[in-house]
């Protein structure tokens, strides 16, 4: 873990950016230059007038038994793209990444992808069955599972189709839509290994199939090595029970691997000697390449990053000091470095990673920079501890063609115009 503010030195960062004065462009409409020592023309009523909240009593402790964000944050919500799917029961919504910071996604903002709507499972009636190539076919209640040794781990979950709409070219203006099928959560759960050992694996056990109790009966095959390595059977997220839309009361956590495998409302694990080739690992979530052939079992999510601010939904508003931030993750391991360019990839600088940097978790990065209204072409480039470097979209397409849909981890470009407006573009 790395929780030190590595290289946090504002002065040298500003110097590295070439100095604000040298870049000075013409003043743009709607932008405010706010030098640190600007003098106020007249007293600020936010200070000189007593505000209602400073005078009158607020609500008491019984007003919000389960707290919600301030009413001024009501715009911070998941969004969907209606044209994307035939109906909303088998569809997806997107996390507002541009409104979040740090590494943890709040439970209420974790994107959702369902194939048969949200199952409202009564935990008293929920069962987990293990059957197939085991010494003992077993049934567990939620009470049983909560009596097993448990652990806490922070992992990202990224849908294999995240950025899928961008395979052929820039399409959606907002990192919420281009990259919002990811969340990063601390799970509490039982290592799957413990459950499998409780049942006793036969020597020919090579794969497991996990199955949900929802109306899609979602099922996926997972190699036994992964199942015994780091998979969790989780019942809590960020300290509280899983949300219904995230699989309450039980889901499998498959660290670093595509989100579709993290079956929600988990009711059954079958142990077998070969994969099942279920719909979601054949018809879907396979990678169709230019030659008409397809990769299967592309489980690992490669290293990827995105700048969340500025971005189309979060334009630059002020000249002078600004904070560029974003997130980076790798299913293969731990993020070791993120580079950022402001000039479309001509020159790069290494961003500052801040907060916990953990394996198969989102890492947060920052570049504190000075902006004088010049046009920017912003990109970020993630690297992980296997030496993998996030490719450009052109490099990805050179290998995979234009029909892959899934596993698009190409470098994203945001164009910041002189007035601060920011748009999704592709560049040479």
């Amino acid at each position, binding site marked *: 873990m790395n929780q030190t503010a590595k290289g946090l030195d504002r002065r040298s960062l500003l110097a590295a950016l070439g100095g604000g004065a040298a870049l000075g462009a013409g003043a743009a409409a709607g932008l405010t230059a706010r030098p640190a020592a600007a003098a106020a023309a007249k007293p600020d009523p936010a200070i000189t007038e007593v505000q209602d909240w400073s005078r009158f009593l607020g609500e008491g402790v019984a007003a919000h038994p389960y707290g919600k964000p301030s009413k001024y944050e009501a715009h911070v919500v998941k969004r969907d793209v209606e044209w994307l799917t035939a109906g909303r029961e088998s569809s997806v919504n997107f996390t507002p990444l541009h409104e979040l910071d740090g590494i943890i996604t709040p439970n209420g903002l974790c994107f959702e992808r369902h194939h048969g709507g949200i199952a409202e499972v009564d935990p008293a009636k929920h069962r987990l069955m293990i059957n197939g190539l085991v010494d003992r076919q077993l049934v*567990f209640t939620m009470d049983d599972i909560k009596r097993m040794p448990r652990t806490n781990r922070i992992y990202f979950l990224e849908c294999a189709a995240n950025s899928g709409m961008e395979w052929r070219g*820039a399409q959606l203006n907002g990192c919420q839509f281009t990259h919002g099928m990811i969340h990063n959560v601390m799970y509490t759960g039982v290592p799957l290994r413990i459950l499998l050992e409780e049942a006793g694996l036969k020597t020919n056990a090579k794969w497991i199939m996990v199955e949900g109790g929802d109306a899609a009966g979602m*099922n996926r095959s997972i190699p036994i090595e992964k199942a015994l390595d780091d998979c969790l059977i989780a019942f809590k997220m960020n300290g509280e029970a899983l949300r219904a839309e995230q699989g309450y009361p039980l889901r499998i956590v498959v660290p670093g691997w595509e989100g579709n495998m993290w079956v929600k409302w988990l009711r059954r694990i079958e142990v077998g000697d070969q994969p099942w080739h279920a719909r979601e690992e054949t018809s879907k979530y396979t990678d169709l390449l230019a030659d008409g052939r397809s990769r299967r079992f592309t489980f690992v999510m490669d290293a990827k990053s995105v700048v969340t601010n500025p971005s189309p939904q979060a334009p630059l508003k002020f000249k002078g000091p600004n904070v560029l931030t974003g997130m980076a993750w790798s299913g293969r391991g731990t993020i070791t470095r993120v580079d950022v360019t402001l000039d479309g990839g001509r020159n790069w600088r290494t961003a500052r990673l801040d907060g916990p940097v953990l394996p198969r978790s989102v890492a947060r990065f920052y570049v504190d920079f000075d902006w004088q209204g010049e046009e920017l072409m912003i990109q970020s480039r993630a690297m992980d501890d296997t030496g993998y470097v996030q490719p450009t979209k052109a490099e990805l397409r050179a290998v995979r063609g234009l029909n892959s849909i899934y596993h698009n981890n190409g470098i994203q470009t945001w164009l910041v115009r002189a007035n601060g407006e920011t748009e*999704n573009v592709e560049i040479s």
Partner: protein
Amino acid sequence: MSRFRKVFAAALVMAATAGAAEAGRLGLGREALPEEVAAWDIDIRPDGQGLPPGKGSVKEGEALFLEKCAACHGEFGEGAARWPVLAGGFGSLKSAAPEKTIGSFWPYASTTFDYIRRAMPFGQAQTLTDDEVYALVAFLLSMNDVVKDDFVLSRDNFTSVKLPNEAAFYLDDRETAEKHFWRKDPCMTACKDKVEITGRARVIDVTPDDKDKSMKVE
């Protein structure tokens, strides 16, 4: 209590829980009854494991499909609105608009059986009898020219059905095919001469706007 007696007592406690503990187990959960496993074990594999007894004809499947499936998938599996297209698309996988159907793309017929049995009809999952699932799979295979119109699909002949695109799938090879993405010291300065914008999302203009209340705010 003497030290000896303490050790002895501890040994007794351990012996009492030896069954599960000796095997490294917790002894939690209970054995599943055969009826319980049978009720939930609905998955089908390409080698036929899991197939229930039963059979169904293309003709029976056609009637069922029109009644229960065609509203979304179209009368011939051609798809309505944005619901999945199930038939056709042959030769389209290399084109700019690949049509990934059971016949053109799916590697195994068993996937069709497994998926229909567990998830279809959409919103009425697990209401079909086994014979009805056989019939629907038979009909979809015929719509994809995999079997003839008089075909009757059964547990006995199921694994003889092969889909044309099976051989086009291969295992994840990114670590070799994309080995060049593992690279030392990516360029940091003067990496290219000029940069041109080659595409803009705003040209397509499909982003939901802020006023679009496409999702209800609680």
